[in-house]
């Protein structure tokens, strides 16, 4: 990374390509948040790589004036793994959607998280397939009526936070498109995290799944439904903090603040090694219905795949010396014919 902090204007981060999402799409807000954040993140733009799969969100790299790969449906974490491990100096960001990450690319997602590859995955969750014009996705609620489920979806949706935690992710967070400050804060935490970061961003698809996150954005309901997870702070929420989260027998529960002793209220700790509490927090809601935690669920340090691969290469070179072809082709023993 450059030693002199690099700062750009948002316009430096914008490519010359016209943004082609539907008017009113939540992706615009997220793009603005990311471009603003990238302009000030202190990394030269030639060292930034955006990798995406397929879907509306996957067009993201075309709008960033950085290096970028728009790859194949679901494969972005695998492509990004190749980028990151090939050049550990790069700041590698994956942009994906719920169908891309959790359906066709589920396998790549869990393994990138498990390996702790040094990539930051931003998953825009709109709970619908947008680019293919409105089929239910793996995060659509049960009973959801769409073009491919006219009588309602009969599938249990995935909980992305639970999945990421179960896949041994070292960084797990959730934001929402309309909350730019929260998004910027999480991006900063993710950038500073060594290893893979999984960030779910609730994103409104105003064409095929409008108002899916209304409970968390509507002025009248959001206070009651947003559980803001802040490291080191008590998890109280709702009007005047009248609701709180407590952990009983290892399970997170929502209680009326007045009914519990203050000491019982859960104080959020993103660095807790054991993921059980974070997992339990992720089970407080199954989709943006009712009180839903937002913020960083977990941020723990462990060795990254990217670094360990290079450590092994460096160790091999130290022990055996830089590889020589003439030695290599003689390594199985030779004989002379004269």
């Amino acid at each position, binding site marked *: 990374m450059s030693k002199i902090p690099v700062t750009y204007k948002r316009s430096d981060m914008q*490519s010359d*390509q016209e943004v082609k999402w539907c008017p009113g799409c939540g992706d615009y807000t997220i793009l603005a948040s990311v471009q603003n954040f990238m302009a000030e993140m202190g990394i*030269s*733009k*030639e*060292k930034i*790589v*955006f*990798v*995406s799969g397929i879907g509306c969100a996957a067009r993201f*790299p*075309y709008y*960033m*004036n*950085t*290096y*970028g*790969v*728009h*790859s*194949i449906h679901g*494969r972005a974490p*695998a*492509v990004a*793994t*190749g*980028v*990151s*491990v*090939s*050049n550990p*100096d*790069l700041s590698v960001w994956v942009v994906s959607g719920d169908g891309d990450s959790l359906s066709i690319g589920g*396998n*790549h997602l*869990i*393994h990138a998280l498990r390996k702790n590859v040094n990539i930051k995955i931003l998953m825009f969750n709109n709970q619908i397939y947008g680019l293919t014009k409105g089929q239910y996705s793996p995060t659509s609620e049960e009973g959801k009526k769409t073009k491919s489920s006219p009588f309602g979806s009969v599938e249990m949706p995935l909980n992305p936070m639970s999945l990421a935690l179960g896949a041994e992710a070292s960084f797990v967070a959730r934001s929402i498109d309309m909350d730019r400050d929260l998004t910027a804060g999480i991006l900063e935490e993710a950038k500073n995290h060594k290893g893979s970061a999984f960030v779910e961003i609730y994103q409104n698809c105003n064409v095929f799944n409008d108002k899916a996150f209304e409970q968390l954005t509507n002025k009248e309901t959001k206070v009651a439904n947003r559980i803001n997870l802040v490291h080191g702070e008590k998890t109280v929420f709702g009007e005047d903090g009248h609701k709180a989260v407590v952990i009983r027998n290892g399970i997170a529960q929502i209680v009326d603040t007045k009914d519990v002793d203050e000491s019982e209220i859960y104080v959020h700790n993103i660095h807790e090694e054991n993921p059980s509490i974070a997992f339990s927090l992720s089970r407080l809601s199954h989709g943006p219905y009712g009180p839903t935690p937002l913020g960083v669920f977990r941020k723990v340090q462990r060795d990254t795949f990217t670094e360990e*691969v290079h450590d*092994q*290469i460096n*160790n*091999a*070179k130290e*022990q*055996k*010396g*830089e*590889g020589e*072809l*003439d030695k*290599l*082709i*003689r390594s*199985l*023993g*030779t*004989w*002379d*014919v*004269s």
Partner: protein
Amino acid sequence: MEIENKTVESIPAVTIRFAGDSGDGMQLVGTRFTDTSALFGNDLATLPAFPAEIRAPQGTIAGVSSFQVQIADFDILTPGDNPDVLVAMNPAALKAHLHDLAPNGMLILNEDAFEDKNITKAGYKVDPRESGELDGYRVFQVPMEKLTKEALEEFDLPGRAVLRSKNMIALGLISWTFNRPLEDTENWINDKFSKLPEIAKANIKALKTGYNFGITVEAFHHTYVVDKASLPPGEYTNINGNIGLSWGLITAAKKANLDLFYGSYPITPASDILHELSKHKNFNVITFQAEDEIAAAAAAVGASFTGKLAVTGTSGPGLALKSETISLALSAELPLVIVNVQRGGPSTGLPTKPEQSDLMFALYGRHGESPLPVVAAKSPSHAFYAAYEAARIALKYMTPVILLSDNYVATGSEPWNLPNTEELNNLETNIVTKLNTEDGFLPFLRNVDTFARPWALPGTPGLEYRVGGLEKEEGTGNVSYDAANHQYMTDMRAWKVSNIANDIDKLELHGDESADTLVLGWGSTYGGITQAVNRLNKKGVKVASAHFVHLNPFPDNTLEVISKFKKIIIPELNTGQLLKLVREAFLVDARGINKVSGETFTAQELTDKIEEKINE
């Protein structure tokens, strides 16, 4: 020790097959005998064969594993047709392999394994030693288990560990019979069991016991010697195709001044490439054992975007899974080598058997109009050069290249006259570090000779660009749905590949160039075809051969070569894939010799069939 009545007969070549249960250590015995013969200076070729199951039920035909080696005092091209010597460690091994043994061949049986239950398990109704079916062979019964137990009595080893050394009895006895010294194998055993000196001593004792059994038993006093081969002068190593291919990739990376990235998912018989490359991290090799075949290819695309010599390796079914990713590399015009070590298909098919049935899939197994270069290895040592060539084309032309090998090339071995690595050409790349126009960087502004686009690597200031699978506008690389542009880009991708025909080795003729008949081949049938043509020429039959290394595009002199002949014969381990390609490309009435039995052609089989076709 000199034996008074020992006779030593000099023979030009011998083919030996070791066969036993998967756990009997036959691969090891074969490899040891091969290495000793290589060090002695014979020419040789080997063919291991093992079941797909790691340990199929003991004593059954399904569990038989074998290793065949031909050693010769002349230049040979195949591991031999019918073995002259068969070592059978149990009745199942005998049953599975006896039909291949040459008439009057030497048959060495582990007589201790011929108990009723093993005989029945192998599917014999009566003891084959008493049924008369061994008439016509020279049968030598050796109590290998008894000898092992007696020899290792002095060691404090459990019974099972003792019996595991019985393969050393067989190796010792064969070493005696073919006048091979034991020192090399003794050194190898000491090295291998350096931390278990007791096991090392026991194995050496068993080895010597086998050897001494030959000295003691008069039946073995007629021995054979195969002299050194008069190979071209040079320094040689014995190499199999998977290792040759791995080293070719490492060499290509070094010669391109790039680091190598290899993404793979374990699959037989390609896994040994992953194993081999994993050992050589001091060459800056990154090996990535992916979560699946798709991720292996996708990560390689990411590595290629970042400036690595990116390679993904697999076998048949895995190539199908990589298909979509190969199309991405093709559309994004990124260099990528895809290794396919072919095996019997379709589906899981015959995982440990050779077949050449993925040729059409390599050429056409993608959606859309998606031509790419295809290169095939023709022998274990050639796999080195084929890998280097595939990398050369990928880097120079910014394209994915499929490199075909097969189980026969991958696991067989032969002596390789080592190249002077300094004389191998450096490989050119299209890496750019500066703007390519006054107005900015155009990621799809092509080289006028190769049509390759510039390779801008992340980390290079000012060249930030985006690329993906959507159609790109020529020059800018921006997403374009323009009709004329898509027509142009589709044509351009095809031109780029067909243009490579001028930049590859010409198709060369072997054998009698004045003949009317040409035998055309590709891949691992090279040894068999060449040997068959040599035999026919020797007999006075006029025939020539030519072997494709490049399957797409064909060398630019192909039509010229083919036109000289009235009859074209194409032997392949498939139902006629090159046959279709050649007929389509050159409008000739070529005829096929085809086989898909999970075995390669023997040289004699090809000799007979080619002669038949000539006389048709």
